[in-house]
């Protein structure tokens, strides 16, 4: 157990300064403005600039396009980028998929892609969910049919976030509908410029853009298959477990769970609410912070955020999401209607942070599996409770029409 300060020697201080310089140059108000406008969580210039620094794959050696950073420096980079609110969803999905690509792609494909990913020229998105499928990814019905060295793909995927900014999607397909549900799946890295791929934008109440992606007779070379035919579930497991359980990097620096960066964002929102409470004036001239009820409620909010950061694994995933929703709603209540004025509106507080947080929070209980999926995981894998038996848990046939 260790929460001590990392000693900042001159060398590390110089690195911090370098990161902050980089952010000041590349994570500009224009980047934020574009993000508010598009919700894509991606900025091409920023991504390329990261690539030029070797910071897309920062710990890799320079010969692999990285910057050879140690874990401490990598963590500095992560936290400073996060604090600056740099758009990073596509950066995250790209890194997530790369692991599977390096493990399962043909060597020549991996060798081709890694340097491009490192430079920022190639990005990956996740082709998991289907419009009718809900959280049951293994029920995928998008079909891939083989014809010699080619596969023909038909189907549609939803919530393929970043598709408009990526070169490939990490696609789960059904290659054998007669096998048991989890055993007839194959993964592909599908070039998004293939004829027959059509990307349609979907916007969320949180201000994000995601996509529905249609695949109509899309021809993909077998070269882009990842792992064995009908062995797709195993290929997907790694990245999925990373999403479901968190990376679990046991290096004493990492977050306990993947929701931690959301929680830290909310920590900043609570701090912003404290600022508001110290500076706003009530009609009687008092400050909200002078009111013990306000202090106690800010105290509860800070506690919930701290507890969510301390909650490990899939438990943390749920605790963070539910805290996000609860605390964001509580801050709106506490502050009143001004909290609902968005960025740019006359009189908006803290750049619209409270308005944004309240809308954004709802999605965090859905991304990468709903909180119910995670509660099932906790019940079965942590508590050892008996697994429920559903008609369609094992066989694909039964989930037809779903």
């Amino acid at each position, binding site marked *: 157990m260790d929460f001590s300060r990392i000693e900042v020697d001159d060398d590390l201080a110089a690195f911090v300064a370098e990161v902050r310089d980089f952010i000041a140059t590349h994570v500009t108000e224009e980047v934020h403005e574009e993000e508010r406008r598009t919700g894509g969580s991606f900025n091409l210039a920023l991504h390329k600039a990261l690539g030029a620094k070797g910071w897309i794959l920062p710990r890799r050696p320079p010969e692999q396009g990285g910057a050879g950073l140690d874990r401490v420096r990598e963590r500095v980079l992560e936290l400073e980028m996060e604090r600056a609110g740099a758009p990073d969803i596509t950066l995250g999905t790209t890194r997530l998929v790369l692991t599977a690509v390096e493990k399962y792609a043909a060597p020549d494909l991996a060798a081709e892609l890694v340097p491009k990913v490192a430079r920022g020229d190639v990005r990956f998105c996740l082709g998991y969910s289907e419009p009718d499928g809900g959280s049951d990814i293994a029920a995928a019905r998008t079909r891939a049919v083989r014809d010699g060295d080619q596969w023909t793909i038909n189907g549609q995927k939803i919530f393929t976030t970043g598709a408009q900014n990526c070169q490939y999607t990490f696609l789960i397909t059904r290659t054998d509908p007669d096998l048991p549900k989890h055993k007839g799946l194959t993964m592909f890295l599908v070039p998004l410029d293939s004829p027959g791929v059509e990307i349609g934008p979907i916007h969320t109440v949180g201000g994000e853009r995601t996509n529905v992606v249609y695949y109509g007779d899309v021809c993909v070379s077998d070269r882009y298959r990842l792992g064995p035919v009908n062995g797709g579930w195993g290929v997907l497991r790694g990245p999925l477990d990373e999403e479901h359980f968190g990376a679990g990097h046991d290096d004493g620096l990492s977050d306990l769970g993947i929701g931690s960066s959301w929680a830290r964002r909310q920590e900043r929102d609570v701090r912003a609410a404290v600022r508001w409470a110290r500076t706003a004036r009530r009609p009687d001239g008092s400050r909200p912070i002078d009111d013990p009820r306000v202090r106690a409620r800010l105290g509860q909010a800070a506690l919930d955020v701290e507890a969510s950061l301390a909650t490990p694994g899939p438990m943390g995933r749920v605790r963070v999401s539910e805290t996000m929703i609860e605390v964001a*709603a509580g801050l709106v209540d506490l502050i*009143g209607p001004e909290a609902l004025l968005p960025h740019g509106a006359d009189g908006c507080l803290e750049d619209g942070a409270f308005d944004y947080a309240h809308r954004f929070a709802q999605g965090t*209980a*859905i991304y990468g599996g709903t*909180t119910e999926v995670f509660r099932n995981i906790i019940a079965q894998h942590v508590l050892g409770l008996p697994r429920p038996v559903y008609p369609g848990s094992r066989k694909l046939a*039964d989930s037809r029409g779903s």
Partner: protein
Amino acid sequence: MTDATGFELRRNDYSLSEDQESVRDAFAEFFTAECPATRVRAAEPLGYDERLWQDLVKMGAVSMGLPEAAGGDGATMVDLALVAEEYGRVLAPVPFVEAVTAARALARCETEQAARSITDTMAGQAPATLALHPVTAGTRQLLPAGAIAAAVVALDGDDLVLYTREDPAAHVPNQGGAPLAWWRPSGAAREVLATGPAAREIFDAALAEWKVLTAAALVGLADEAKRLGAEFTKTRSTMGVPIGSLQGVSHPLATVEIEVSGARNLTRKAAWFREHEPAARPELVPMAYANAARCATLATRVGLHVQGGLGFTLESDVTLYFRRAKGWSVLPGDPSDELLAIGDVLAASA
């Protein structure tokens, strides 16, 4: 709370009379027919549909709540709460609650200007609205319906004042999609409607009525958000079963049903006491308001969540409800300040 000493037995009748059911059904029918979600969306971001408002006024939504002496039908707060619930159910982009409460306050003042403002509202003109906070020198407040109102009823010191102006103030975009505007009493015609204790009394009554009707609107909003969520779960499947058959989905929806059904009754009870014995249970208004606010937050959260990723997209109607749950309920400030108001009544009780 009932009186701990002495004997008091009250009726406990939540049923609606036939007349009340007719009023509710008529407005439910109007709102359902005239205000599909497409119309709510079309009225964004201002949150005002002038034709809808005029049609609603023609139906008598404002006049019904005014005394017969003022050309109204003398409907009770219970009747108005029933209408407000239907208004909330469809998120109608009209200033129903503000216009009604302001007009009822004006009707309690016997000035010429008050009468003229009521006549204007009843003619479907831009209505008067109510400033929820007393005027404080040097500060502005967010005014409900402020971006469309032609006049403002406000408590200014010891006076209840009607401020009229040429043009409504500039709309302030807001998550609730409401026609809010920043307002302070500057450069507008100013007429004192009442003064001293009478002014305070009329203002307090108007604010209480605003809260009861907003609570009712939040109940309607919550009920519909729940319905949208429940319907979705009937048709979607996972693992070969409809997701609505899974307790992880059905139990949260049942919790919403529990909260909505209670919030509805509590709000109507508050409306009844407000109408018939406002001094008997003063804590009911803050109770109804705080409870409806909490209920709407819960119902929209669940109604959205059970629809998974689709519920979170802008195309999903439940997001319209989600944004207004908070947008409406925090207009007077922190809804949990109502808890203190309840506690103050308890502290003062024998």
